[in-house]
């Protein structure tokens, strides 16, 4: 094990761990489950569509982590955004429903961001608190009741629809990844995010408005969590207070395995996409293997542990 880690350090395996891991897991399932439906087009499409919301949350988290902050509240934002959107759609047309979902997400991100950027409260504690706060709001909004979404254009746009045969969830994933990657790599904001995460004081001295960057990343994360909420609402044709609740660990794992540094200054959107797909594929394959639920959890935990250990090897040096 020690030798393996040493080798991985020498060839800087951490950079590629997500791609290698993805490939290895894919090959393993393809060989063992080839006859069990794993390789069918439907199943592979399922994996991509099922991971759409987590991929979109992961993109937001890359910005936050790369800036040296963390957001633990995005799961709760997903639920509040989905419920807001579903409630508004019951009375008003599509546009307002979408506006409500995204608006709520960005607004909560703004709220988190102000506390983190201008009051200089640690983002871990702020979002730990707002995670509970907004989970509570999600529960009380509709008294724990699920809200059906019957607006067909909404369901088409965000759930089961397709454009030229390409499912809408795939389009949202690709769109968010493309825009996220562009902003992160090619714009001033992306550069400022990395500089802030790498060394906030140096960034401040070199003229970067560090608080503004911190506010922006929290808002991006909130907005994308809102979008993920819309996708869940579209896919399930309903919103419920539990949406997004269990995604926190999956998304953090996907982002870290993808190659984003937990302590800032380094991040990759494409890595997060592959990380998210890897997590989805793992869930899918372990179910198809016919493992008991407990065994699925154990195997998943071990694989994530190995992947994270190799990913963080470089960072922790």
């Amino acid at each position, binding site marked *: 094990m020690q030798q393996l880690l040493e080798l991985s350090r020498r060839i800087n395996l951490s950079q590629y761990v997500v791609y290698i891991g993805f490939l290895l897991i894919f090959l393993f399932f393809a060989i063992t489950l080839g006859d*069990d439906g794993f390789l069918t087009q439907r199943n592979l499409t399922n994996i991509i569509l099922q991971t759409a919301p987590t991929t979109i949350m992961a993109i937001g988290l890359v910005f936050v982590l790369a800036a040296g902050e963390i957001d633990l509240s995005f799961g709760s934002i997903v639920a509040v955004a989905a419920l807001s959107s579903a409630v508004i759609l019951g009375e008003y047309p599509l546009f307002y429903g979408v506006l409500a979902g995204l608006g709520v997400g960005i607004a909560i991100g703004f709220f988190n961001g102000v506390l983190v950027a201008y009051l200089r409260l640690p983002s871990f504690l702020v979002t730990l608190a707002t995670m509970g706060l907004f989970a509570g709001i999600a529960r009380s909004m509709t*008294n724990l009741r699920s809200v*059906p979404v019957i607006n067909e254009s909404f369901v088409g746009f965000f759930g089961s629809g397709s454009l030229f045969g390409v499912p809408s969830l795939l389009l949202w994933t690709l769109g968010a990844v493309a825009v996220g990657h562009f902003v992160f790599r090619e714009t001033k904001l992306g550069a400022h995010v990395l500089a802030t995460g790498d060394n906030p004081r140096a960034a401040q001295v070199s003229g970067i408005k560090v608080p503004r960057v911190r506010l922006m990343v929290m808002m991006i994360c909130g907005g994308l969590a809102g979008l993920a909420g819309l996708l869940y609402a579209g896919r399930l*044709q*309903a919103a419920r207070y*539990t949406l997004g609740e269990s995604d926190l660990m999956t998304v953090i794992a996907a982002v870290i395995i993808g190659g984003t540094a937990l302590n800032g200054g380094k991040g990759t959107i494409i890595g997060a996409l592959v990380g998210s797909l890897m997590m989805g594929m793992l869930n*899918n394959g372990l179910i198809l293997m016919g493992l008991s639920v407990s065994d699925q959890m154990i195997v998943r935990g071990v694989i994530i542990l190995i992947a994270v250990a190799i990913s963080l090897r470089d960072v922790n040096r």
Partner: protein
Amino acid sequence: MHLITKTAFAAAVSLALTGTSWAQTIGPSGETATPSAEVVVADSDIATLKAGNHTAALVWHDQSDFVSAVSAGATDEFARFGIEVVATTNAAFDTAKQRSDIETVLAKEPSIVLALPLDPVASAAAFKEATETGVQLVFLSNVPAGYEHGTHYASIVTDDLFQMGKQAADALAADLGGKGKVGWIFHDATYYVTNQRDNAFKTTIENDYPEMEIVATAGISDPARAEEIANAMLLKHPDLAGVYVTWAGPAEGVLSALRSNGNKSTKIVTLDLSEPIALDMVRGGNVSAIVADEAYELGRAMAASAARGLLGQDSPAFVVAPAITVNADNVQEGWQTSLHRDAPKSLTQ
């Protein structure tokens, strides 16, 4: 006679419609209940089933002793028919994950899916794909909105929910000699299973035990907060003779509150078997009885209903498995009947 029947029917309907004071377990859409023992596969049909090389998937909401026992009951019954369980999933109460789980297991093209749909509203879209592929669906306890018996699913199988609540009330009343002040800790969520059980307890105390009175009520949605809730209740009503707790998880918190208050007199009744709760009961502590469902039998009946569906035979829309009251004297038997395994060692030593 005719008039009496009609009046009784009208009364039953009005009871069902008022929602809180029904007299027996009714299905989510008002279906009458058929005992699970009536859902069986004829021996003469077993060979046909075996020749079919069928497979089944179990799509559960969560992981627990209860779910394990239902799975065991189903798996054993399926084994008799040569049906293999090829996938098992746990949504951890996440409707979105359950949707993904269904899509995933359908890749294995099972002939049967047994499932507990998490939520009537949010599960409707989730199970749609399964109904379209012609899989035999049997639901546990809940049914997605708009689904019809025979068209979309073979049966709903559930506990005799009313009996569970009623037997809890009867057990508490028996222990308290039919009098005293009672606290009622109910599940504060719109959830068919717990709502029916909780209300049955309340109705039974109110209707059958005139010298007992529910003086304190509190809702819980997070079992982890049960201890705080019980502490607050005991502070306001130190003279409670008994407390009903909606299920065993929160009852552990209530028990802990009683212990830390040094309270040895207030009795607890709760639903679903749990070792810590049962241990207090066999040691003569606060717990007077636990009412349990026959989880293993639920699984068996689900499997039998699905197998009947494969054979083209109808099954009743709404099937209930019996409830059993477990007290200090019949712990071993209770565990066997409910979960189909021996009671934990701590309880029988």
